[in-house]
């Protein structure tokens, strides 16, 4: 049984007040996500990521197609006891504290009243909300609200978690913590479906990804299969040499740029012999600060596939030529 399965899932909206026109937010999406996977749902802004998540949460209803979570239709209340959802830029009730909000949600999940306080406290600890848990949410920063959002999504120890842009609004420490939480969930066997346009996160965390653009699925599969491990060159940072000395060992046309006093950034092409270049640096009295391979990234793949998508911006249903955005 798949954790998530969609078949030809489609959503059209009517846009325009006087002359309503159909707008295709999502076009025949087919997805299968296995249990225990960390699945990245990637795409540029407006690609249909949030629309898909809202369809899976039944916040909106599909125009056609179907979707299942854990083998049951998405509207099934019993399924919702087994899933968690973090909306994009979550916002909750100003007048409640984080504790009260989570206690309310725990009650909706059917958590017995005797166990609620402990469950809520554990979840707030897990997302790093300390004494602030007794402050009203109106006093929370965006990053803290995101943490509360994560806590409410994980409150019921879900089997499948849906995270819509979970890194949004977080500082580098917060992003690291969210990554750690996702990795912990993966280790527990929880299925994580998260949308993002931050590709580095997806590359680090996901076993498989899907890329959507203009409402269509343009690619899906394992990250390793999408991004072949092919080295395209080398990134060096060198100190202790002067500019002219580089000409003695780097091929013509190589980029050599001074990035600080006496510190140079060199981009060696893949055709250059790395070992002999490193030996020459040492022989000339230079010191190697760092060396990193340059290879294709998920971002390269993403940009290439999104650019290939030939659906015009402001896509409409077939037969309608008007741009709607």
């Amino acid at each position: 049984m798949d954790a998530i399965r969609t078949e030809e899932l489609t959503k059209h909206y009517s846009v325009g007040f006087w002359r309503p026109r159909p707008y295709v937010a999502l076009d025949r999406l087919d997805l299968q996500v296995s249990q225990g996977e960390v699945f990245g749902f990637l795409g540029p802004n407006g690609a249909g990521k949030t629309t898909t998540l809202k369809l899976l949460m039944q916040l909106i209803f599909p125009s056609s197609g179907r979707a299942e979570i854990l083998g049951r239709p998405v509207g099934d209340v019993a399924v919702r006891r087994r899933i968690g959802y973090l909306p994009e830029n979550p916002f909750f009730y100003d007048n409640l504290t984080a504790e009260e909000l989570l206690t309310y949600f725990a009650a909706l999940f059917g958590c017995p009243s005797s166990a609620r306080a402990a469950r809520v406290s554990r979840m707030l600890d897990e997302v790093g909300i300390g004494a602030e848990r007794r402050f009203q949410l109106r006093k929370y920063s965006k990053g803290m609200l995101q943490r509360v959002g994560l806590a409410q999504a994980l409150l019921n120890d879900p089997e499948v978690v849906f995270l819509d842009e979970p890194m949004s609004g977080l500082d580098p420490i917060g992003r690291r913590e969210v990554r750690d939480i996702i990795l912990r969930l993966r280790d527990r066997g929880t299925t994580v479906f998260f949308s993002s346009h931050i590709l580095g996160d997806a590359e680090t965390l996901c076993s498989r990804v899907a890329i959507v653009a203009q409402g269509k699925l343009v690619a899906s599969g394992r990250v390793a299969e999408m991004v072949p491990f092919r080295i395209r060159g080398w990134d060096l940072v060198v100190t202790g040499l002067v500019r002219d000395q580089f000409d003695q060992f780097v091929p013509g046309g190589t980029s050599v740029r001074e990035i600080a006093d006496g510190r140079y950034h060199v981009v060696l092409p893949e055709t250059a012999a790395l070992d002999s270049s490193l030996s020459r640096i040492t022989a000339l009295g230079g010191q190697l600060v760092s060396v990193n391979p340059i290879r294709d990234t998920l971002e390269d793949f993403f940009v290439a596939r999104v650019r290939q998508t030939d659906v015009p911006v402001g896509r409409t249903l077939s037969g309608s030529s008007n741009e709607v955005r």
Partner: protein
Amino acid sequence: MRSILHVATHVFRDSVRDKVLYSIVAFAVILMVSSFLIGQLTAGQDVKIIKDLGLAAMSLFGLFIAIFIGVGLVSREIERRSIYAVLAKPIRRHEFVIGKYLGLVGTLLANLAVMAVAYYVVLEYMRFVMPPGQFKITPPVVDPKLLIGIGMIAAELALVTAVALFWSTFSSSAMLSAALTAGMWVAGQFGADLRNFDQVVKSPVAAGIGRALYYLLPNFAAFDVKSQVVHGVPVAGGYIAVTLLYGAVYAAMLLTASVFIFSRRDFK
């Protein structure tokens, strides 16, 4: 059923901390207390003025609470997107709507109770400072029958809340919902005029529209028994029962329509 109770409790907790609510209740209580001073300016009518003003303050400020907090129940949740996290929980949409309604009615009743206590404190003080010779006036200063008026205000406000909830289920703008609810309340005060519209207009079409509106709009005027209870005029039990039943049926119809619309709505 349990989910409805959880939502209602949550609404009550969230609403009673709303600063707007405190302001409205505080203002109503100040008005009731100051009615004592206003009553001093009128010769012989001070008790009736205080009773009238107190009930009017409860009715008016209760209306503000029902409209401004009532429309916010759903509209504000949609505007601020807090509804996304809630509806992803194991709760059916009709449970959410009914829970919201019951929570706000509970909030309204609690506030009405605060205002009623303030009202009776003012009346008790009035009785305390009154010369002994005036004790035996009819109706009495501290009259338990005023509770009938307060009860009818509560029923009216429960119906206003249902109207506010109805508009807010398909309008994303809290202000528009508030305006529509207020408009419906004003129109509902003219039930008798709409019913007898044919006596003031010649056009049968206009008279028909007036009559149709009379049946369509909630007849809020029917709940107004303030002048009777203030002047000690008995209000028939049958009238109260029929009016309460009318309010309950109308509110149930509005809630059913709200649930129907809300259950099919896309939250974009």
